[in-house]
């Protein structure tokens, strides 16, 4: 056993145990750790944004008489603070509109390509779907491609609300439910794995870095 000598490791370990204490019941130690985390995170972020964004990209060039147009941009950004003055709070819409307009303009065309067209293309079964790759033998990949195509059709049918789900739509949407449930199962399995992983990480820290019980 080789217990850590670094006081910061002790601080982290004690805070970890304080957070874990919530598993028993809510208590002052947990609340202290929670509030400390929120405070430190915000303090760190604000300081960082000031030194890494405002200083090099605005204050420094403007104070040296360079890029004076940045002052106008900064003024638009400052309008976010009008939120706190009821009489002129409508001005907050200006920076929001600028950000939304820019983001949407940049995002939508690329998202249509990346998230819709390329995804649709990936569901089309072609001869190349049966090609052997690193992922496995060709026939196997081909079968999976067919299953994916059927799954997409069945699942989209389940969410097709423009017609009553009877006749041919009914069995197809039933198959769609099966695909959706398999998807939920996979998500749940992965979620369990993720949560356990996080717990393992904390125990590796407590038993290893703090108490020195691990290699």
């Amino acid at each position, binding site marked *: 056993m080789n217990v850590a000598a670094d006081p910061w490791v002790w601080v982290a370990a004690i805070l970890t145990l304080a957070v874990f204490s919530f598993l028993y019941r809510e208590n002052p130690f947990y609340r202290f750790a929670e509030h400390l985390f929120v405070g430190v995170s915000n303090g760190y972020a604000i300081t960082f944004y000031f030194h890494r964004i405002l200083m090099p990209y605005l204050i420094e060039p403007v104070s040296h008489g360079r890029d004076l147009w940045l002052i106008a941009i900064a003024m638009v950004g400052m309008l976010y603070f009008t939120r706190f003055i009821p009489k002129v709070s409508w001005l907050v819409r200006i920076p929001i509109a600028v950000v939304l307009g820019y983001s949407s303009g940049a995002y939508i065309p690329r998202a249509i390509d990346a998230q819709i067209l390329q995804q649709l293309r990936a569901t089309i079964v072609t001869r190349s779907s049966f090609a052997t790759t690193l992922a496995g033998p060709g026939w196997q990949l081909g079968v999976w491609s067919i299953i994916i195509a059927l799954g997409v059709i069945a699942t989209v049918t389940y969410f097709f609300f423009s017609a009553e789900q009877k006749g041919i739509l009914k069995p197809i949407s039933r198959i769609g439910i099966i695909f959706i449930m398999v*998807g939920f199962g996979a998500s749940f399995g*992965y979620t369990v794995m993720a949560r356990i992983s996080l717990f393992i*990480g904390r125990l590796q820290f407590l038993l290893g870095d703090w108490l020195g019980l691990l290699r």
Partner: protein
Amino acid sequence: MTPQTGREKRGFWDRLLLVDRRWLYVVIWLVVMVPMLFPFDIKPEAMPPVRKLFEYIDSMPEDKSLVISVDYTPDTRPELHPMAIAALRHGFATKRRVGVLCLNTVMSLGLAEGALRQVSEEFNSRATTREDSIINGEDYVFWGWSYPIITVLLGMGERITRVFPVDYYGHRTESLPIMASLKNYDDMGIVVCIAGSSIPLSWVNYAHTQFGCQIGCGITAVSAADFYPYLNSGQFTGMLAGMKGAAEYEELVSEKMVELGYEWDLPRKGTEAMSSQTAAHLAIMAFLIIGNIAFFITRRRKQ
């Protein structure tokens, strides 16, 4: 007597369903802790998404750089940090130029810097020549963080030094030797985005769709199901999902390093966690089965 017996029989399954959840926490704690102290041998077998990413990085042309986008925060560190460490080891061992940046949040910076410091020290502490050493600004660059994401991703397609005029350590990026051959996406073999959020999709939207840059991702297990469609469509070259994905990649990198003559016994947090992970999964499966049996027995009795 009869009601008493009936209550006793029903009581066991009812009590099982009503057991205080804190006992389950104790069981999980023990199930995770004991294999950590007394691990059993598990060799992670690399799945195709992991193998594809590894093979791609391994076989990309020598003049292409490996770029790692570190976009996770301390809350997802156990799953994602081993991936970053393994990717850096892979890049340095195969003599790739490596670029590291953060897009999502400033909280990633400390983690990225820690990973770079750890891996470069692993190499430098054993180096005997310049070729074996890993030097900041020549073999790797840490650009730091910039904002907003769209501007960074589009700007990197033209000139990285315009997006990151100074690196994390305050050096002018124009003055760094590595930047002479790492100007934009054309010089990148692949970008591996390690993230606990949807940032890999931003890389797909902008860097892949617009500039044709290859994207790999390392993600938390909880978001793996959402990312598989992009792997299937080829928009992701490969994918590491959760701690298991990290362990598989660590294993491949470890084998590669031995092949290259780096026979070092380096810590591998992902692989080391597999005993606990396996034991915990078995316990949870047992909980699910016992819980369902108890549920159906009590329901039948009530009916």
